[in-house]
Every structure is written in structure tokens, then in C-alpha cells.
């Protein structure tokens, strides 16, 4: 035990505990909002795309442009560029609250594109058959498209959650708190490799858990 204590002499386990909690909170809230906003956005992109139910070139092109712009911006830049807007929304650009708007703004376009792709995987024949049954557009989306695309959407949520873990770590650079913040302040700036090691292992464990749970859910809802 003594060797272990010397090996991790710089590690303040309480601080690690708090940082892990902060990361999980940032991840949970930002993922919830990303799904809430990105799912309808992805559905809208799919429906307005060429040869789909609500084909609309101007709407599709406009959303596509905004989505691509946000995706083209490196997240670290987005964090900084968004600061004034973040302060208006949450009253601060620091801490957990201050990182939520950029996290959501960064992940939503990414997730929406994945949702659009998942919907595109649904056989056109399914839409036609549902139409032939006398379904309204809303019913086609809710009763046919979304259930059929569910495995794809769950996979998209998994990928997005993992991307958000890396985003939260980056947000540490601008004072967000969480594991990334610890890694940067202690591990990088003070050369405390033990702290760096512990945070990286925890992030790795978190990503592994997310991927495993996501894969299980996808398998559970796939009936192919």
C-alpha cells in the first residue's frame, strides 16, 4: 500500500471523485439536450432532403449549411467564440453551467447528421407501405421511421456521448471543471504524471462503459 501511495503521491482522491462527478453531470445534461434538439433536427433534415416526404431545397440547404459550419469549427474554438452568447444564456461562461451551451452547440449538429443518416438507412418501401395504409406524415415518422431507425439512432447516441466526453475534457481548458480540467491543470501544467494517468484511465473506463451499454442497447433493439 505504501508503494501505491508514493506512486500516486500527487493524487487527491477527493478531488478526483468531485471531478468525475462533474464530468458525468456535464455529459448527462449536455447529452440529454443534444438528443432533445438533435433528434427533431435530424428528422427535419431527412424529411426535407431530396425525394423525401417534405422535400424542400431552401430549408434543407439552410439547415445543412448551419450544421456544417458548426461541425467545421474545432470545439476548442467554439468554446471561446461562444463565450458572450454563453454568458447571455446561463449568466456565466465558467464552470459546469458555462460549458453546457458550447457542448450542446457542438454536439447537436453532429448528432443530427447521424440521425439523418440512420433514417436514410430505413428502406423506402417501409415509408411507401405505411403511406398505403393511410398514415399521415406524423404517423409515418412516429410509427414507422423512428422505430425502424431505432438501432441506428441508439448507435448515434453512443457515438455522440463518447464525442461529448472528449468535448468535456477540452472544456477543462477554459475552467469547466471535470476530469479534463484536472488533467490539464495538474497533469500538464504541473507535470504531475500520476494525476494525468489517473484521469486518462477514468476517461477510458467511462468511454468503454458508454460503448458497451450502447452496443447492448443496439443489439437488443435490432431484429434483423
Amino acid at each position, binding site marked *: 500500500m505504501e508503494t501505491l501511495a508514493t506512486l500516486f503521491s500527487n493524487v487527491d482522491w477527493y478531488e478526483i471523485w468531485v471531478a468525475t462527478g462533474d464530468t458525468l453531470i456535464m455529459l448527462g445534461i449536455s447529452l440529454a439536450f443534444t438528443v432533445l434538439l438533435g433528434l427533431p433536427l435530424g428528422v427535419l433534415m431527412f424529411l426535407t432532403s431530396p425525394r423525401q416526404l417534405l422535400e424542400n431545397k431552401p430549408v434543407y440547404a439552410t439547415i445543412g449549411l448551419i450544421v456544417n459550419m458548426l461541425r467545421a469549427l474545432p470545439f476548442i474554438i467554439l468554446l471561446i467564440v461562444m463565450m458572450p452568447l454563453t454568458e447571455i444564456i446561463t449568466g456565466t461562461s465558467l464552470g459546469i453551467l458555462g460549458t453546457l451551451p458550447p457542448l450542446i452547440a457542438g454536439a447537436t449538429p453532429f448528432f443530427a447528421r447521424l440521425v439523418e443518416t440512420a433514417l436514410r438507412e430505413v428502406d423506402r*418501401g417501409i415509408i411507401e*407501405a405505411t403511406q*398505403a395504409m*393511410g398514415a*399521415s406524415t406524423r404517423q409515418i415518422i412516429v*410509427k414507422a421511421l423512428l422505430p425502424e431507425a*431505432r438501432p441506428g439512432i441508439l448507435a448515434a447516441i453512443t457515438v455522440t456521448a463518447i464525442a461529448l466526453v472528449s468535448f468535456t475534457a477540452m472544456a477543462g481548458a477554459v475552467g469547466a471543471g471535470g476530469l479534463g480540467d484536472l488533467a490539464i491543470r495538474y497533469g500538464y501544467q504541473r507535470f504531475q504524471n500520476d494525476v494525468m494517468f489517473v484521469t486518462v484511465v477514468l476517461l477510458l473506463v467511462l468511454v468503454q462503459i458508454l460503448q458497451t451499454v450502447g452496443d447492448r442497447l443496439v443489439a437488443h433493439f435490432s431484429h*434483423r
Partner: protein
Amino acid sequence: MIEFQNVHKTYRVADREIPALHPTSLRVENGQVFGLIGHSGAGKSTMLRLINRLEAPSGGKILVDDVDVTALDADGLRAFRRQVGMIFQHFNLLASKTVADNVAMPLTLAGDMSRAQIDQRVAELLARVGLSDHARKYPAQLSGGQKQRVGIARALATKPKILLCDEATSALDPQTTASVLQLLAEINRELKLTIVLITHEMDVIRRVCDQVAVMDAGVIVEQGAVADVFLHPKHPTTRRFVQEDEQVDENDINSDFAHVQGRIVRLTFQGEATYAPLLGTVARETGVDYSILAGRIDRIKDTPYGQLTLAITGGDMDAAFARFTAADVHMEILR
């Protein structure tokens, strides 16, 4: 009754107008099994989808029981579509739902039945198509024929008056095709359902249809009772379809049978005449000899028919021909 009045359809692809269906008029009587046959791109798929307006016509009127389908608003169209069932080549079942939930789908979408009523209706439908034991399975666990039976049960859920079949057996093996066609014929008979089917196989038309229309390049080139069109095809496209099914190439008769002595005739029997001992009787009485070069005895839906290609030599040939004609047999002299 389904009635097409001067209906046409043009697709616009990159500023070019591509006609899929030239102005066409057509009537399908209630209770009929009506077949549309044609190669891919002939316009039969467009024609089928015009009936429940999955495709909107570029012009003309489509009446179903005197209701103008082309004039329906969105609500009217949805209500109308519930009276028209549809099955598909690739079944188009929802992979995420069980067999029972797939069949229940048109009923839950309509939203006018209780859960208990829906469950009861689904049980009835699955019993009708012989899949009661598979209610809790997912489509991926079924064979092609079983999937199409689920498709049929689903199409019948809302008790439609019309069933549209889009190449319903083209993805199935011959044996499964036969059983699915038998089920369709049964449904037509017992539920007095009007069926419109499209296919590229003459055999499908022969087994279940009452009337057939042959399509080529967006035009109906030949139409009539299946027996007439099948046994006496006039248009080249129809002839090609019939020959594909019959395995006898009329054009080759003169080259293949060039060395055969005597006259070559084709006799077509229909109904009870198929089973009459005509050939032997005529040969005995007129002294002709005959050899059978090609032939087939089968059924067109419920009517037996026979078609024989004969080489006739010796005896009183004219008397023999007269006897054939008098016996209500259709005779063509090929050489």
C-alpha cells in the same frame, strides 16, 4: 369498379419530361382479378400506384366506385387508402415489430378500434393466412413465403375492397409462389375482393387472373379475358410473354420442323373439349396420320385447356381440318 379515364403520367427528371404512362383508359370490374403484365419500365408499377395515389397522375381521372381519387383532399385520401390494401415484392414489413404488430399496424393507424378488438382481428387474420403460431416472431425469423403471408394479412386488416399486388411473388421460389397465388385466389373468392396485380410472369396471370392487360412502353397493347389473350396472343409483346411461359418459340417452328413431313397445325382446346378423345376419332375416320410436335395441357385459372402442335400426313386432310373446326377447337395452320 376501378376506372381509368385518359390517365397519363409524366416524370420530370432534370428538366426532361419522361412519359411513364401514355393516356390510358381501363375498367376493372368489382370482384375481378385483374393482371397487368409488362417488362420493367413498361409503366405497370406506375399504373398500380395511381390507383391508391402513391403516384399522382399528370392528367385524367381515376374513379374507384365512382369516387374521383384524383380529387380527394389529404384526409379523404387517407380514409380512401384504408379501403385499398397493398402488398409488395419485398414485403416491406417493419423489422422492429412482431408479426402481430405488423398486421395490427393499419388498425392502430386508423385509431378507431380498441386494443381488444385489434387483438381479435389480428388473430383472425393470422389464422386466415396460416401463421397463428408465428404471432410473436419478428419478420427476420420468417421465410419469404411467410413474410408475404404477413403482408397479405396486414393488407386485409382494414377489410379493404381492393387489393393491389406489386410483383407479390417475384421474390419467391416457384413452390412458394404457387401457394401465395392460391391464397390470393382464395381471398378473391371468399371475400369478393377486387385484386389488381402486376407481374412480369405470364404464369402468374394464367394461374389467378380473370382479365389481363399487356403493357409496353407506357401503353396497354392488348387486353381481354386471360384465356383469349393467352391462347391467341396478337401483339408481339404478348406473344413474347406467352412463349416465355410456354417454352415453344413459334418463330422457330419452320426451322426446327423443316424436315417434318406434311402440314403443321396448332389446335387449341378449352374447357371440356380438352378431355374429349378427338384426335384418335378424327384420325380413324379420315385416315390421316399425326405426330405431336409440341404440346401442353394445363389450366387457366379454373378452366382446363390444351394446345397441341401437330404434323399431319396422308388421308383426307381437308375432312380432318373440317372435323377439328366443327368440334369447337381453334385451329391454326402453321405450314
